[in-house]
Every structure is written in C-alpha cells, then in structure tokens.
C-alpha cells in the first residue's frame, strides 16, 4: 500500500478508535466506522495537519469510503 494510503488508514482508524487492520479501501466511513458529521471535523483536521492540505467541511463530507478519502487527499497533493 502506498505511503499516503497507509497514513490515511492510520488516521481513519484513530478517529474511529478501531484497529487499523480492520480498515480497508472499501470500508465505509459512516456505515462501517460510524464517522459521521461530527467525526469528520477531526478527520479533516488530522489529514490537513499531516499532509499540509486544506479540506473544507463540504469536501470532507463527500467521501463514502476510505478509498474515496485517499482520492480526495491525493488530488490536493
């Protein structure tokens, strides 16, 4: 897995308070990990802090899966 993917999995797992080993590209942020509106604030902040990106509230709500999130971040780098 590419480094960016690994880092995003680590962040997602931390926000969801779950084992990174259970987080896969197809894992759904809301349905599987219970990361809903409130959790997305922390998710965006941690991603931005890690990658130096700027992710708006609107943008962070759109990804459905971990892979969607990776694509969002990759598009900003």
């Amino acid at each position, binding site marked *: 897995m590419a480094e960016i993917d690994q880092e995003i999995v680590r962040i997602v797992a931390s926000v969801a308070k779950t084992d990174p080993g259970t987080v896969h590209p197809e894992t759904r942020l809301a349905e599987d990990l219970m990361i809903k509106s409130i959790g997305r604030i*922390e998710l965006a902040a941690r991603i931005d802090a890690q990658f130096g990106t700027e992710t708006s509230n609107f943008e962070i709500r759109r990804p459905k899966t971990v892979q969607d999130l990776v694509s969002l971040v990759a598009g900003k780098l």
Partner: protein
Amino acid sequence: MDLMERARAQVGSVSRSIVFPEGGDATVQDAAVALARTGVVRPVLLDAPVELVARLAPYLLDPEACRVPDCSHDPRVRRYAELYAARHDIPLNAAELIVRRPLYFAAMMVAEGDAHGMVAGIQSPTEDVIIATHLVLGQAEGAAVTCSFYLLDIPGRDSEEGQLLAFTDPAMHPRPDSSELAEIATAVAAAVEGMLGWEPRVALLSFSTRGSADDAAVDLVRGACDVLRSKGATFAFDGEMQADAALNERVAHRKLGDSPVGGRANVLVCPNLDAANIGAKLIQHFTCATAYGPFLLGFAAPVSDLSRSAQLDDVVGTALLVAALHRSGPGREGPWGRSRVPLRDAGNA
C-alpha cells in the same frame, strides 16, 4: 415589555459580550453597531474590517476590543488548541487547525469565559454551527436533550404574548421519537419561561386533532403527550392538535372542547424538523415576521444559530436574547441547564 426592555432587565447594569464569528458580514457589522448603542450587549466580531472600530467608537470606551482582527493568528490559539486537544484526545497540530476556524475560535471564547455567548450562522450552514457548539461547549449537565427553537415576531398576531410565538424544532431533530418530542417540549417550555417570563402553553402539533386521523405519525405525537403526563410535566400542554386548533380559540372550542392550550398556544411543537423548518419559513415569508434564533438549547452556554437569510432586526434581537440568557458561574440553572465545568478547569476536575 418589549424584547429590548426584557433583555435590559435580565442583563442588568453590566453588559454581556456576545461573539460573532462571521464579523466580515455586513449585516453582522451593522448589528454590532446597533447592539453597542443599546449598552446591553458588547459585540465581539472575529475578522471584521478595521473600519468597524470607528463606527463603534461613539458608543464604547474601547471599541478596538470589539474586534479580533485575525482569529487564526490570535495569541489565544495555542491555549485553546491545548485545551481542545486534551479534551478530545487528538494531536495538538490538528486541534490548532480546528480552533483557528472562526466558528470554533468563537465557541472556545465562550467556553473559556472570554465571551458570554455566541451568535453565528449568517454565513454558515446550521449543521456547522451545531457541530462546533457540540464539540467545544458540549451538552450541559442535567440537560436531557439538545434542541432548538425560533422566537417569531409576527405582524398582526394578537395574543397574550403580543406578536411573539415560539416554534420548535427547526434545526436539530429530523425525526424525533415520542420521548425526544416530549423532552423538546419541556426544554422549550423552560426556555420561554426563563427567557421571557411566559407561562408556557405548549401545543404538540399534528395533522390530527384528538383522533380525527389515524396514523403512526399521529401516534408518535400522542405518545409524546403520554410521556409528558407520565413525567408530571408542570407546564400546560395538550395534543395532538392541528395548528388552527392551537392558535384560534373558535376552532379550538369546536375541535378540542376544553383544553388548557387550545387557541392560546404560545409554543408550537412540530412533530419533525421538516414541519418546523418549513412552517417557520412560511410564516416569515408570508407575514414578514422577524425570526430570533434558532436558539440552541441544552448546551453548556448560550448559543444561537442564525438563518442565512437573517436581517438586521433578526440578528440584533437574537443577540439581545442570548445576552439575557447568560447565567454567570457554574451550577446556575437556566434554560440551558447547569453550566458545564469550563474547559480550563477540566484538568482539575
């Protein structure tokens, strides 16, 4: 007693500071000048232009203090970030990014006692205001539910409360169950009593009146009334009833018969967010009503959202009412419930 007089009576001789995170908005700036003139509210605007200082100068001794020029680089960011990071167990650098955002910086000001309340939303979706309030201020101790309500000032309305009518919940609960609906009714009843000195008369609305229709949606509202009865609610309430039975005495007499609320309701509890939000905006549109709020209840400090269509009077009146609701010190009971221990004391709790 009009809203200004009520706010002045509640606040007393010491003005309350209300922070506006959207200080770049022209309506908020105009509201700040109007509020400064009242002597009841001391506005604090984030990211407002320097020209605002001159506009405030005729009314305030230190108008510069009403402006936070660039909250993202304010000296308080570090302290706020440390508190936020500790509370939420997140990395400090991520917490800094969060508290640099005006909504979060403003909420942290309230949490830390640097402001008494917050009024936000003229440029932000309601959900963003609610999330920031939830993450920073949190639910008040003892608050059974968080919810919201509008106070509508409706031209032509002639009631015991003049033109005013409380309307809930237009912002927070898409589909409350019976128990939640009962808690919302209770919270708003307490709010209008504490905020305005009203005797609450709460109507739980439906498309049915006393069994005129049969549907699960009607059962939900009836269930809320059952919950209120079983809990021994001390305020006047009735339901399920249609809106005309709630507001028109002739209709109430025909449809309800004897009712402590029929025809005289001053709090309308809608069964879901769709009905409340649509209903409130229809009232505003067709009557040119002024809409104060929606006030967010059940959080640890006074916060109000604003509609993105809010006009000057909406903003000014909302801020006055938020100021009137501030209760200083932890443990004081108010419409918002007891104050939570401030973040700065969290480490000592």
